[in-house]
């Protein structure tokens, strides 16, 4: 037997007080009565004279001593074990991931996380005080919540302070961290309080005897949105959303998922999945204006957090293309661009002569200009000696001096060879068998990627990407080939417009996992002190601000699914926050294959793990017995 609160032994001095009180009690108080004979006749055998009667008094005192001892031991919170309990160093990992928010119907609708905290209290409360404890949180990022301590109350307080987290757990990282921290400790072990949904724990616990999985939860009843991914199709002016629903329950799933854009229902999809299966579907969303896409699953189950997911639909804007070409060679390019609606914004696009280009370029750069800045400028048969430092360009049958220099005679009837590695620009473009009358022999002055070359290796199509400028260089005259009669060149032109037409990259990623800290992907403008924050959660919005320091910020309010909008001046960025791990939806607990309590040294506890209660009950029984012996002794 060991006492978890040995300080209670100080109360044993009460036993001494009991003996003293009994000694004092022997000194009888004197009392005068009118006639003693009356009392003696009444009391009969009640007078205390015999040795037997004195022994009965001793019995009463012994009973009181037993009562005191039982109560003192009960206060000391003893634990009994058939074996010897050695002090251990116990690192407890508590899983606070999304699956731990599942409600357990068998446990009075408490969440698994509540049960985990209760398990922590139970474990720490039923081990000897000589144990050393540490608590690690496995949710967001593995971190030590309570360093090594002998104070189990501190462990329980730290456990109570852990907040549930709606993201995926990083149990393996937490185990690795704990493994490092228990090195050198006496008889160490790692107790993982988890439902095991975040990863298979059985092989780990089987491989490492120090790992003890303390299983939590029993319910399987859950279906959740495992993935919601959206890709914009600029060429079609719409989006493709890939959504998958995980059915982790034991019953077939028949439900529906609703897609909303900025709170307006866009579509409803019927969902059906076998037990343990997954339903997936790619859905076309025709909403070029963009918005916040919310997918919600119409099903009440144990885990609510995975019943919705968010995605950001960036607005699809058609590209403004300037064609700078001599008038006599403009027709083919104009027709090709005109066929690219809605990829090309015909109303805002221009066809310019080389002479008009400088003035138009200067006008578009003016702050109040009505001209929209071009997303792509196509130079055909002419190019300025120096391209603008910023922009996206396609140079056909010309070569700015800064990009390349003539390397001798022109190539005559060169054969086109495509580079082995695929590039988005060359998607669906088949140039095999195309005939070119001639091509310029150019040596690239800037590092570039050759997408097609001649048999001699001279570049025919090359992409030169610089920090602020992208240039696709074609060294041949399109009109001096058979490309106008093939589909290849219009496809190349469409790919070029699509590839080159990218909005300025957002300073946020489109999606973040729950719990992940959101930071800008690039430095924010100098002088920015704060960013306006709008959190979209379900149907509600919360507005606040995020301080910006040294061109960056750290947004940690990412514990719930939803979307976030950050604004700095006129520049706004969106991001979605989702669980991001279909495994969290599979809440079926992993049943521990071992006796975790036995492994921790608590399995052979006697008296149901609450010996203090038994001692208290025994003391109560002794009180009753003493009362009976006192009130009925000597006479009954």
């Amino acid at each position, binding site marked *: 037997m060991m006492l978890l609160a040995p300080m209670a032994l100080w109360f044993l001095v009460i036993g001494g007080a009991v003996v003293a009180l009994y000694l004092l*009690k022997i000194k*009888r108080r004197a*009392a*005068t009565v*009118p*006639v*003693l004979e009356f009392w003696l006749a009444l*009391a009969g055998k*009640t007078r205390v004279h015999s040795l037997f009667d004195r022994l009965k008094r001793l019995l009463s005192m012994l009973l009181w001593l037993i009562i005191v001892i039982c109560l003192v031991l009960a206060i000391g919170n003893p634990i009994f074990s058939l074996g010897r309990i050695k002090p251990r160093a116990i690192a407890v990992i508590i899983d606070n991931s999304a699956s731990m928010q599942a409600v357990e119907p068998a446990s009075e609708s408490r969440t698994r996380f509540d049960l985990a905290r209760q398990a922590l209290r139970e474990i720490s409360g039923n081990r000897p005080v000589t144990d050393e404890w540490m608590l690690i949180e496995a949710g967001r990022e593995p971190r030590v919540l309570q360093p090594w301590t002998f104070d189990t109350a501190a462990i329980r307080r730290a456990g109570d302070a852990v907040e549930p987290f709606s993201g995926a757990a990083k149990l393996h990282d937490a185990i690795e961290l704990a493994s490092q921290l228990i090195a050198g400790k006496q008889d160490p072990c790692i107790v993982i309080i988890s439902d095991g949904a975040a990863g298979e724990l059985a092989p780990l616990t089987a491989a490492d005897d120090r790992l003890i999985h303390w299983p939590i939860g029993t319910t399987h009843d859950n279906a959740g949105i495992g993935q919601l991914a959206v890709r914009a199709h600029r060429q079609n002016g719409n989006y493709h959303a890939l959504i998958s629903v995980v059915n982790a329950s034991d019953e077939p799933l028949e439900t529906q998922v609703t897609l909303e854009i900025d709170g307006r229902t866009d579509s409803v999809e019927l969902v059906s999945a076998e037990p343990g299966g997954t339903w997936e579907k790619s859905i076309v969303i025709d909403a070029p204006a963009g918005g916040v896409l919310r997918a919600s699953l119409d099903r009440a189950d144990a885990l609510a957090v995975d019943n919705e997911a968010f995605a950001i639909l960036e607005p699809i804007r058609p590209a403004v293309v300037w064609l700078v070409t001599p008038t006599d060679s403009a027709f083919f390019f104009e027709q090709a661009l005109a066929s690219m609606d809605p990829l090309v914004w015909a109303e805002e696009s221009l066809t310019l002569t080389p002479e008009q280009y400088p003035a138009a370029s200067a006008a578009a750069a003016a702050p109040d200009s009505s001209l929209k800045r071009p997303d792509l400028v196509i130079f055909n048969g002419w190019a300025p000696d120096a391209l603008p430092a910023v922009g996206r360009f396609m140079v056909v049958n010309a070569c700015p001096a800064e990009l390349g220099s003539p390397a001798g005679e022109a190539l005559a009837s060169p054969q086109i060879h495509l580079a082995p590695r695929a590039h988005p620009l060359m998607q669906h473009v088949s140039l095999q068998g195309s005939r070119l009358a001639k091509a310029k022999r150019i040596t690239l002055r800037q590092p570039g990627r050759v997408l097609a070359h001649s048999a001699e290796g001279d570049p025919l199509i090359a992409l030169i990407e610089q920090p602020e400028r992208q240039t696709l260089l074609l060294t041949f005259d399109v009109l001096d080939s058979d490309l106008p009669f093939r589909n290849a060149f219009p496809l190349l032109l469409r790919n070029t417009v699509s590839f080159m037409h990218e909005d300025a990259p957002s300073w946020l990623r489109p999606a973040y996992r729950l719990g992940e800290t959101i930071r800008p992907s690039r430095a924010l403008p100098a002088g920015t002190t704060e960013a306006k924050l709008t959190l979209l959660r379900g149907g509600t919005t919360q507005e606040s601000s995020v301080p910006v320091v040294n061109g960056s910020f750290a947004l940690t309010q990412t514990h719930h699914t939803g979307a976030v909008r950050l604004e700095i001046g006129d520049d706004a960025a969106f991001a979605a926050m989702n669980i991001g791990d279909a495994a969290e939806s599979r809440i079926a607990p992993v049943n521990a294959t071992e006796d975790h309590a036995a492994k921790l040294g608590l399995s052979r506890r006697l008296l149901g793990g609450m010996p203090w209660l038994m001692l208290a009950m025994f003391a109560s029984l002794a009180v009753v017995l003493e009362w009976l012996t006192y009130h009925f002794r000597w006479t009954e």
Partner: protein
Amino acid sequence: MGQSPVGGRPRASKGPLFDPSFLQRLETLNLIARQLVRGRRSAARPSIKKGASIEFKDYREYSPGDDPRSVDWMAFARLGELYIKLFRQEEELDLWVLLDRSASMDFGDPSKFDHARRIAAALAYIGLGNMDSASILPFDTDLRTGLERMRGKGQVMRLMKFMEDMTIGAETGFEKTAQMFVSRVRRPGIVVIISDFYGLQKARAGLDRLRFAKHQVHVVQVVSPWERNPPLRGELRLHDAETGEETNLTITDSMLKRYKTAFQAFTTDLRKYAMRSSIGFDLTDTDVEFDEFVRHVLQHGRLLA
């Protein structure tokens, strides 16, 4: 004075036993008694003896030695036989108050002894005003010297002084007391015994002796709340107030419960004995005012009947 601590002994208060208001209350009681006596005395207290009075009772034949003055000569003239006229004899009415002054009476607040003295004084006062004589005789182990055959209200101050000076004595010996009383007082009278009547078996023998001596016996049992519900519990050394004997005793709640039952039976047994033996019986608690009790006795009891 309140109750003594647990296990202690309640002491009698030391206030004046008879104050001016006491006499006023006595006079009130006397008026009540006088009204009762007027209504009852002539018819209710005839003597069984035949004697010299103006009230004719019967005739009987003349026997030698009879007083010739009592011969009815008119009857002799009519019948020729000598007959003696018999008249109802008027008997003197004596009140004897036997007051227990044993140590067991020194309990309660007011003490049973004080309470008993007030009742005794009240009865004697009534006797002085309404009867032929009134006597107060204290007793403990035996009969002590008291005030005998006081007549008239002029004895009141003497009575009060005597009662005031009376002290607590030793053990109770009522049987011996009764024996002494019977041998000293030959003429039957009203005998009121005021006591706690502990040792009932011995008390019965004494009461029987008084009863057999043709006295009209009336008992007043005095008890105190302390006795009804003694605040005793635990390991005690009990001390007998009369004998000084000591004994160790463990008094528990169950024993106290049995004590209360037994004490109730003790008073009940005395009452039943009194009823069987045609003895007047009254029970008084020390927390009841003496005049209230005496008024009750006068109106409902048989003391003046």
